């Protein structure tokens, strides 16, 4: 019963079996990951986010002759402060005011928040720096931290006239008149940064 012959036999059998097993494991591991495997860093996900962001901005920027678009009204009414999402609404960073009367925030709540897409809204405008007109540093309207590597940016430019800013518009005091001699007030670039977490 306690046969001591064929020890090497057994050893060979075991090593052959182990070799085959390792190869099978390598095979399964190598074929499972492709660029289209679902993950958050997928090229299709990025193009979807670009289409979604662009649609949001296009919808908000529709205007009829004689009226401002909703996006333009939001930019004029912005008070210049940063807002963050507290799970219920966009609240002032370090304060208690909510982002009210904002068409942008209501669309973002319905589309991006409900799908769990993280987003940031930044505004870039022109400033006068020692008699040169240059673009400002990006100013955050809605902040959500640092984007992931696969974030997408969609943007839209809006032109403000002097007549838009009278009567209490241009609430933040950040956009200044870069050309007092004509009706042109400022040019604003609104950037929407989207990423999946």
């Amino acid at each position: 019963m306690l046969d001591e012959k064929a020890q090497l036999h057994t050893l060979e059998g075991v090593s052959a079996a182990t070799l085959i097993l390792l190869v099978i494991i390598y095979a399964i591991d190598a074929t499972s990951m492709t660029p289209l495997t679902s993950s958050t860093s997928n090229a299709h996900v990025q193009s979807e986010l670009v289409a979604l962001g662009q649609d949001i901005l296009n919808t908000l920027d529709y205007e009829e002759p004689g009226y401002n678009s909703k996006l333009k009204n939001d930019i004029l009414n912005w008070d210049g402060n940063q807002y963050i999402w507290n799970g219920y609404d966009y609240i002032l960073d370090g304060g208690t005011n909510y982002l009210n009367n904002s068409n942008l925030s209501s669309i973002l709540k319905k589309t991006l928040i409900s799908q769990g897409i993280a987003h940031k809204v930044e505004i870039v405008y022109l400033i006068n720096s020692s008699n040169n007109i240059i673009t400002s540093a990006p100013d955050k309207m809605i902040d959500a931290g640092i984007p992931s590597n696969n974030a997408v940016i969609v943007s839209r430019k809006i032109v403000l006239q002097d007549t838009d800013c009278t009567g209490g518009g241009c609430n933040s005091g950040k956009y200044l008149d870069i050309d007092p001699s004509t009706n042109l007030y400022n040019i604003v670039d609104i950037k929407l940064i989207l990423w999946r977490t």
Partner: protein
Amino acid sequence: MGIIQNNDAQFMLLAGFIIAIGLVITTVMFSSIIFEENMAIGGGSDPSKNELVNLIHITKDETRAAYNNSTASGGGNTAKFNNFSKQMQYFNGNLSKMYALHGETVNISWENWTNKGYANLTDNGTANGVSNWTVIENVKNSNITVDVIYFNGAFQIRLKNSTEKLINITSTGTFSFINSTANDPYSIAFVNGANASGRFNMTGNASGKQFIRARDYVINTTMTFSSNRIKTILTIPFSVPW
């Protein structure tokens, strides 16, 4: 026999090696095919397309705003055009700075509209535009003023709700019509608009709020846009003031 001299099971090991190598080769091949076929298709659409559309949109808005501002300030045609050019020049310079942030260059130029004839009453103001077009729908009351400068055949203004009213215009001159309904909103359309050119101005109430549709001229504006992938020069007629 010692362990080192044992010659049995060589074929078993050989068979093991053969199977292992066969599996590795098959795996690498299949993996490369599957990888290749599942490669991400394209990179989505080119973002420059949206930037181009945005550029056309804001240039149109700025042309209209500059025209409105220059005519409001009064003065002769030369003064108006200088005012218009000044604002457009400033706009052009500052717009380039904004677009440079995205790695694109833009340039805008425009024509002198003071000596130009008035626009046709077609949908885009050019002679090739659509002759029969609806200006606005769902109107409760309206005040229409049409100033015909050049006349080449009769054209009509059609007010249509449950009934249809056709206003026939058969000569040059300034015509004014005021209409309103109680419960039956109507639409305003031009018929055979290519036969005449001039100005029009419509104000009133539609869809629950005030509206204005007006055209004096059509200003051909040339936009140059170049980005990483697209370089283009376009000339588009913009109807001013609205």
